[in-house]
C-alpha cells in the first residue's frame, strides 16, 4: 500500500470501507457487544422484562446469585468439568493421537470414528446417553440385569447425575482434542525424532523429552478449549437431567437458563451472565498473558 493510493476515492477505497464494514459492525455490536453492556445495566434491576426496568436494587442481584445454593453447585460442576477435561480427556486424547498418527491399517478410520461424537449435536448426544443410562430400558440397565442386579437410576440421584454427565462430556469431546494433537504431530519436525532414535533414546524418553515438549503449544491450546467449552456447556445437560435432580447437575449456563430465562428474572439472569462474562474474559486474558505468553 503506497502513499499514492491514500487519496480518497482512489479505486473506491472509501466506498468499499463504507459498504463493507458496517454490516458486520452493526450485527456484531447489536447482538454481541451491546447485550453484554445491557446485561450489566439490567443486573441492577428487579425486572420481569416487560416495559422498562424501574426497580433499581443495586448489587442485590449479585448477592442473590452468590447466596443461591444451586449456583454454587453449578460453579462447582463447571470446575469439575475442567478437572475431568484436564485429567482424563486430555491424556486420553494425547495417547490416542500418538498411537493414531502412526500409519497402520484402520488408523484413519479410527480417527474419524473417534471424531464423530464431536460433530453430533449435544442434544442428540444427550438423548442417546439418557437412553444408555435409563434404569429400565437402557444399556446400563441391561448390563446390570446380566449380573442379576437392579440397575441404579444414575440420572435420578443427586450424587451420580453429574458424574454421569462428565462421562458424556469425555465421550463427546476427546476426539476433537485428539484431532488437534494429530494435526500437530503431523506437522512435527521428524529430524529430531530420528536424531534422538540414533542417539539410542528409549521410546519413553523419546515421548517425554522430544514429542511432548513439541506438543506444548497444542496442549496449551487444548486446555484453553477445554476450559472455554466447559464454561458454555448447556445443550448436553438439558436432555440428560435439565439440571436436576434437585438442581444437582446445573452448569452456570443451565442455571442461567432455568433461574433467569424461564422465570423471566431479567435482572437476576443478567447478573449471572455478567459473572459468566467476567470469568470468561478474565480467564482468556489471563491465559493469554501467563500461559500462552511465549506465542
Amino acid at each position, binding site marked *: 500500500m503506497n502513499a499514492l*493510493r*491514500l487519496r480518497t476515492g482512489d*479505486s*473506491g*477505497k472509501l*466506498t*468499499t*470501507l463504507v*459498504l*463493507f*464494514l458496517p*454490516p*458486520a459492525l452493526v450485527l*456484531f455490536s447489536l*447482538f*454481541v*457487544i*451491546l447485550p*453484554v453492556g*445491557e*446485561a450489566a445495566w439490567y443486573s441492577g434491576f428487579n425486572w420481569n*422484562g416487560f416495559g422498562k426496568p424501574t426497580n433499581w436494587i443495586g448489587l442485590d442481584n449479585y448477592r442473590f446469585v452468590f447466596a443461591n445454593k444451586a449456583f454454587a453447585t453449578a460453579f462447582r460442576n463447571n470446575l469439575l468439568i475442567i478437572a475431568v477435561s484436564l485429567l482424563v480427556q486430555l491424556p486420553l486424547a494425547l495417547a*490416542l493421537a*500418538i498411537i493414531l*498418527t*502412526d*500409519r497402520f491399517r484402520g488408523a484413519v478410520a479410527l480417527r*474419524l*470414528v473417534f*471424531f464423530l*461424537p464431536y*460433530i453430533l*449435536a449435544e442434544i*442428540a448426544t444427550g*438423548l*442417546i446417553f439418557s*437412553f444408555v443410562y435409563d434404569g*429400565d*430400558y*437402557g444399556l446400563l440397565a441391561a448390563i446390570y440385569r446380566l449380573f442379576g442386579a437392579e440397575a441404579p437410576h444414575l440420572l435420578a440421584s443427586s450424587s451420580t447425575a453429574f458424574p454421569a454427565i462428565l462421562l458424556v462430556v469425555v465421550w463427546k469431546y476427546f476426539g*476433537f482434542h485428539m*484431532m*488437534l494433537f494429530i*494435526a500437530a504431530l*503431523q506437522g512435527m519436525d521428524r529430524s529430531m*525424532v530420528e536424531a534422538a532414535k540414533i542417539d539410542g533414546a528409549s521410546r519413553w524418553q*523419546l*515421548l517425554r523429552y522430544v*514429542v511432548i515438549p513439541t506438543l506444548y503449544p497444542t496442549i496449551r491450546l487444548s486446555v484453553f478449549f477445554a476450559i472455554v467449552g466447559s464454561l*458454555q456447556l*448447556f445443550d448436553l445437560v*438439558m436432555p440428560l437431567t435439565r439440571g436436576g435432580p434437585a438442581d444437582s447437575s446445573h452448569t452456570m*449456563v443451565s442455571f442461567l*437458563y432455568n433461574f433467569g*430465562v424461564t422465570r423471566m428474572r431479567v435482572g437476576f*439472569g*443478567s447478573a449471572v451472565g455478567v459473572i*459468566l462474562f467476567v470469568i*470468561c474474559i478474565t480467564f*482468556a486474558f489471563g491465559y493469554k498473558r501467563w500461559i500462552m505468553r511465549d506465542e
Partner: protein
Amino acid sequence: MSEEAPTVPFSEDGWSPAAFAKVAFLGIVFLFVAIPLIATLLGGLKSLGELRTNPFGLPQVWEWENYAGILGSKRYWQLLFNSLVIASLTVAITLAVAAMAAFTFAHIHFFGSKMLLNYFTIGLLFPSATAILPMFIKVRDLGLLDSYLGVVLPQVAFALAMSILLLRRFFRDLPSELLEAALVDGCSYINFFRYVTLPLSRPILSTVGTITFVHSWNAYLIPLVMLNSDSLYPWPLGIMVYQGEYSTEWHLILAFITLTILPTILLFLFAQKHIVAGLTAGSVKG
C-alpha cells in the same frame, strides 16, 4: 488427514506386548464410542419389549415401521427443513458479511483498523449464553421473536469473530501483486473483491461455511429462547418435544434420533476434510 507421513515416532514392526496393549486400548475406546451409537441405530429397529430384553444385539424382528412412520410424517421433514433454512441463511449471511469485513481488514489501511479488529476478537472470548436475556429483549423489540431471522441474526453475529479472523488471514496471504496490478489497471476494490478475492478463496469460504453450518445445525439455546411455534422449530428443539411426548417409548425416540443425526453423519462422511480442517482450524489463532 494425510496418509503420506512416512514414519512416526512410535511405529513398530511385528507384534509385541506393547502392540497388544495398544490394540486392546484402541479396541476399548472404539467400543466406548461405538456402542451407544450402534445401540441407538439398532434400537430404532426393535420393539419396545425387545429393546428391554435385547438392547445390544441385532433385532430378532426388524421393526422397519418405526423408521418408516417417522419418515412418512410431516413433522420430521418440517424439522429438517427449518434447520436447513436457518443454517443456510446463517451461512450465507455470515459469509457475505464476514468476507466483506475481512477484505477491508486485509487490504485497506484505515485509522483504527487494528482496534476494530481487536473489537471483533472479543466475540471469541465468551459464549452467546452470557447475554441471552438482553439478546432476547433486543430480538423482541425488533419484532423478530418467533421468526427465522430472530435466530439467524444472533447466530451470524456470534459467528462473525471467528469467520472474519480466518478469512482475513487467508485474504492477506493471497499474493499482494495481484491487488497492486489490478489497482494499477483501474480495477476498483469492490471489483477486485468480487472477481479475484472471492473466486480464489473458495477453500477458506467452504471451511468457514462448514463450521458455521455445523454450529447452526446443532444449535439449541438461541432457537430455544427465540422460537415459540413448532412450525419453525429446528430439529434439536423438535426432538426434545418428541422425547417429551414419547417419554418412555425409547424405540421411537431412538429411531427419531438416528434419523435426525443421519444428515450430520452423511455430511461428515462427504465433507470430512473440510469439517476436520474447519473445526480444528478454529484452533489456529488469528
